[in-house]
């Protein structure tokens, strides 16, 4: 039994077929980068993993059991924006994760329990390098710091899967590089299984141990919505040799003839 099994999953909205015939398995500890053109369904797929959307056909099994059809503690998420609570300080933002599970009725914890949660939260805040900003509100933080905070929040719950929805898309290149180092470090230390949607193919190859390229194999020019996207490339890049091969793949994908949409996006 694999960690995550995707069995013949299809997704459509009304007449528009978004995804079709997805058959994939993922081992625990893999870092899957999902790349593809806008509107190719990679975000839809992430939302299905999250439980926000339901597949039209097929099933997704996590450790042999069907995925719960609403967001829960098994799956952590970091969005591109708005992932943190603006009315809470950095410390409170991270503490709230455990306050939810310890105070079902009141929503707040007190005394010794609070001190425990605070200690745990401080550790994760330290791990993402936000200790100097412990008592700041999110609006006082830069975009990169907000994303660090969102990651710390998600880690508090030790999720089986960590989902990243273009997490670094709104950041400056320099900050982005720092975040890459951070996320790779966190991935390895915590033995996480990560799914990341990204527009940036290079980022996908740099971070992932596996890359999925979403694209349409079948195309009907009269009815562009008739067929959905599939995972056209499933590349294992966990070893160095594979990584160098994949560099060539990037170039191949970046040439205008093979994928005009991708080119447009980079411009």
């Amino acid at each position: 039994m694999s960690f995550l099994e995707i069995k013949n999953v299809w997704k459509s909205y009304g007449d528009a077929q978004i995804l079709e015939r997805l058959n994939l398995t993922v081992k625990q500890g893999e870092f899957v980068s999902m790349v593809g053109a806008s509107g190719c369904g990679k975000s839809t797929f992430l939302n299905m993993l999250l439980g926000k959307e339901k597949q039209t056909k097929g099933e997704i099994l996590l450790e042999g059991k069907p995925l719960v059809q609403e967001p829960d503690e098994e799956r952590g998420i970091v969005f591109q924006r708005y992932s943190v609570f603006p009315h809470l300080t950095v410390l409170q933002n991270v503490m709230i994760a455990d306050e939810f599970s310890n105070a079902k009725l009141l929503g707040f914890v007190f005394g010794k329990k609070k001190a425990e949660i605070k200690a745990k939260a401080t550790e994760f805040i330290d791990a993402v390098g936000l200790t100097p900003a412990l008592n700041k509100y999110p609006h006082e933080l830069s975009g990169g710091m907000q994303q660090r905070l969102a990651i710390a929040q998600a880690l508090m719950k030790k999720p089986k899967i960590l989902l990243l929805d273009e997490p670094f898309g709104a950041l400056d290149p320099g900050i982005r590089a720092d975040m890459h180092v951070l996320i790779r470090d966190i991935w390895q230390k915590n033995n996480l299984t990560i799914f990341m949607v990204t527009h940036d193919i290079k980022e996908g190859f740099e971070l992932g141990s596996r890359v999925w390229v979403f694209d349409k194999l079948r195309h009907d020019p009269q009815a562009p919505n008739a067929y959905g996207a599939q995972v056209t490339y499933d590349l294992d890049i966990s070893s160095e040799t594979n990584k160098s091969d994949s560099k060539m793949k990037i170039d191949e994908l970046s040439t205008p003839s093979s994928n005009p949409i991708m080119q447009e996006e980079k411009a």
Partner: protein
Amino acid sequence: MKRFMNIEPSPALRAFLTLLPFIIALFAYSIASEARLAENPHDKLLPSFTQIADAVDRYAFTENKRTGEYLFWQDTGASLYRIGLGITISALIGLFIGLCNGLLPTLRAGLSPFITIISLIPPMAILPILFITFGLDELAKVMLIIIGTAPVIIRDMQSQVMQLPQEQLIKAQTLGASTWQVAIRVILPQIMPRLLASVRLTLGAAWLFLIAAEAIAAQEGLGYRIFLVRRYMSMDVIFPYVIWITTLAFAMDFSLRKISEVCFPWYHQGAK
């Protein structure tokens, strides 16, 4: 020379410009008043400042011979009690129903269209119904304020809740929050400053309903007094009462804003 649109007045000039319209208005009034009184010393339309001061002294600082009370403060107390009670209840109703409606699609499906229709009923049109149902005393007046302002606050709160980024609600769920926990830890603190803003905006309407209700049936109150002395054309009483109501309205608005800024710094600084 900079374009006019790019010229920022200095602090001193800004203060002067703020005061200027007030000074001009007072000056214009005193000239007009003097001119009328010179022609007819018994003219009641534009009383002089001394006449107004006399009236204020009579109403605010002289004991009523019959009841031993100070009419002005009695009226102020009665009106503030009504508007305070009315707007507080409205805010609580608005917060509770608005939050539930915004968060729970099932409740929203049932209640939202109904509340939209209710909010379109002109409250003044059903004032007679309120007087018939709730009698002529305090309850009817407070009810008019509630009926006039609560639906607006409910609708505003509902849309504010729905405008919170979906990402936050999903994030809370992935951290293990239940519906209840999302409501009290994520949504409630975030819409409190918005509730205060909503109350500030509806205060104008609340005063309108209060004065209208007092004008029609009351024994005391600022609105009652204005409409009572209107029979004697006592402009010397009406003017200070109107200025006093404006002052109260301004003070309420100002203190709500200050409360919001002190209690929810993240909201006001974040908006910048």
